[in-house]
């Protein structure tokens, strides 16, 4: 009798044990999945460092970071990143000039003025816009925006920074609108009521109460939009041209960091030393800038979440 129960017990124990094992194994597998994202980050950093540092066998640090001539694809080679960086920043500022006011205005309209029916129509439309592939925006810029610009500025070249700025601005605008809308709607209604109660108009409530209260969310969306504009590739590759130039004039053709990477990778860059390394180095700088901006944006966003929840 007691023997039987003992064996029963051991079977149960065994079952429990194997069950335990299974649970552990499952947990381990799932954990590995989750770790994959960390592995991605680590390998991005490793790959960019490993490939990019090769470039400094050919040029010095100061030549790369402070050189004003970028000519990686044609003789004589020179690898000064400033022209690419200035091109990228120019696109970013131009796009910000369009996307930030438009996006914030749309968000204010959506959260403060729109009726539920208008909201139901406009919000999904903005989401659809955000889903249009960037290569399509590039086509818009080249085929429709540049010809319109050519009417205003007859001397504008086919590939110019201005059309790319405009189109990248239009492209990131829905994201700004959507994030700002979330931030503005997170401001408690009681704060608006308090404003109206002391006799403020809708304009005054919006600019003096709602927007300041949501400022961190709004700023976070701005930073994120600019980071998106920096990383934007196809639209600027198609529209802005491929002539790296240290210029402040948006009516000229320029090249951004992303556009250079595409141009170089499209050619036969697979085996030649300095050019191949320069792709990684430029990508490294690009990654660094966007990463810092994303971290800043996330920090700001986190702070604003804590305030109203």
């Amino acid at each position, binding site marked *: 009798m007691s023997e039987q129960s003992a064996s029963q017990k051991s079977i149960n124990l065994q079952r429990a044990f194997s*069950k335990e094992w299974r649970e552990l194994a499952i947990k381990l597998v799932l954990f590995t999945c989750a770790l994959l994202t960390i592995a991605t980050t680590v390998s991005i950093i490793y*790959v*960019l460092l490993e490939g990019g540092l090769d470039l400094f066998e050919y040029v010095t640090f100061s030549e790369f970071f402070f050189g004003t001539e970028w000519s990686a694809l044609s003789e004589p080679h020179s690898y000064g990143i400033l022209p690419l960086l200035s091109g990228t920043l120019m696109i970013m500022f131009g796009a910000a000039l369009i996307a930030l006011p438009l996006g914030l205005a749309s968000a204010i309209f959506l959260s403060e003025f729109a009726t539920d029916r208008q909201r139901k129509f*406009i919000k999904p439309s903005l989401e659809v816009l955000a889903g249009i592939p960037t290569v*399509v925006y590039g086509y818009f810029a080249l085929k429709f925006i540049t010809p319109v610009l050519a009417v205003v500025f007859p001397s504008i070249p086919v590939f110019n920074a201005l059309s790319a700025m405009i189109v990248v601005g239009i492209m990131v605008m829905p994201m700004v609108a959507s994030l700002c809308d979330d931030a503005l709607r997170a401001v408690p209604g009681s704060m608006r009521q308090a404003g109206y109660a002391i006799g403020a108009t809708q304009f005054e409530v919006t600019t003096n109460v709602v927007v300041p209260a949501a400022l961190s969310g709004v700023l976070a969306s701005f930073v994120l939009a600019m980071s998106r504009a920096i990383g934007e590739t196809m639209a600027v*590759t198609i529209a802005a041209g491929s002539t790296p130039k240290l210029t402040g004039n948006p009516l000229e053709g320029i090249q951004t960091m992303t556009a250079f990477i*595409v141009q170089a990778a499209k050619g036969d860059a697979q085996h030649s030393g300095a050019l191949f390394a320069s792709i990684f180095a430029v990508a490294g700088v690009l990654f660094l800038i*966007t*990463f810092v901006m994303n971290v800043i944006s996330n920090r700001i966003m986190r702070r604003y979440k804590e305030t109203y929840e």
Partner: protein
Amino acid sequence: MSEHSPWQHSAENLTRRRRISKIFKYTCISMTVSALVLVAVLILQVFSQGLSPYDYEATPFIVSNENTFVDALTMDQLQAIFSAEGSARKWSDLNSNWPDEYIKIYGFQREYDENAHKFITEKITGDRDGSLKQKDATYFEYPPQVMNALLDSPYAIAYVDPHTYSRNRSRVKALSLDGVAYTPENADSEAYPVTEEKFIFVDWDFLTSPPSSHDAGETGVYIPLIGTLWLVALTALISVPLAIGSAIYLEEYAKQGRISTFIEINISNLAGVPSIVYGILGLAVFYRTFGLGNSVITGALTLSLLILPVVITASREAIRAVPQSLRHAALALGSNRWQAIWYHVLPSALPGVMTGIILSLSRAIGETAPLIIVGAAISVTSAPGGPMSQYSILPLSIYEWSDRQEPGFAEAAAAAIVVLLVVLLLLNGIAIFIRNRYQNKLS
């Protein structure tokens, strides 16, 4: 406080403030509307590209240089020569001054291009389904054969394609029709009577032809479309299990601690990394280190890493939305943690997870830059047959064609955009369908 207060009580001030408020409101409205209208206009422009002809193609009617008597014909004479009902068999039937010789008629009728023949039939007989003369006439498969036959006899007349004519223009002469000479200007203005308007729009031919590098009229999206579908399917296969796995871990297993916070922050940062950087990662890891080369699987792995952060976030939200009571009920009945997740949490979360996945996949479809870097190429000559094949993708065709200067490629790019947008719309439609069905079930 009161001295800084922007709203002081005076009637005049109040009207002014109200006016400002109104102006502000309408500024916001007009900015929103103008942004939407602008994009609507851009999209309409793309769709309207197919409505106007991108080029005009005039068909030359030629005789050999040895033919000394004819330089021009009227359309009536042309009909008399070529149409099945035409009465002219000898040149003298047309004009008594012309020699009493039989007219030899040549033309071409390509099997793969029915439209060219039909177009000429229509121009001559006035009826698309009409017929050309068969007696005294020979129709070859290729225009160069027509040229050879024509040069044998001064009493022959033929029509060829513009390309063949321009290569042989020293040996033959093109006739004026109704007094209009065969010149490029007359073709472009459609003054020349036998001028065809060339269009490109999305039709069956466009979907089933491979891309052409020289002739926009023959180009299609078959290879890139199949490539895109392969890529999306493989990306889904790779990213879905990984995303669901990490979402389950983060939502159901991970304790609130340093590691899970770190993973969370990492995911949100990864979501902001430019897609082109993933391309570089794919190039270094999958293309070179794993030696997968420029195959579909390299592209799919790269895209999977790219969309993983978004899919994980969406899946987590779906899993979090499953009521806690469901888990408790399962656990109370004696199931262990994994059973509760597998049999109860996951099935309820699945529609939400699916929606998130499909929306991320539609982002993946539009991605171009990372795939250019890992080796998608427009020059690929066959549709991929497996994960290790080379491939091309739809957005790449759009990119390549929008740069081309030859007539028709801008329109071809627009047509490819239409195809891409339709694929996206379909995917989004599926996502919305799933979401709606799921919501109905809950209520």
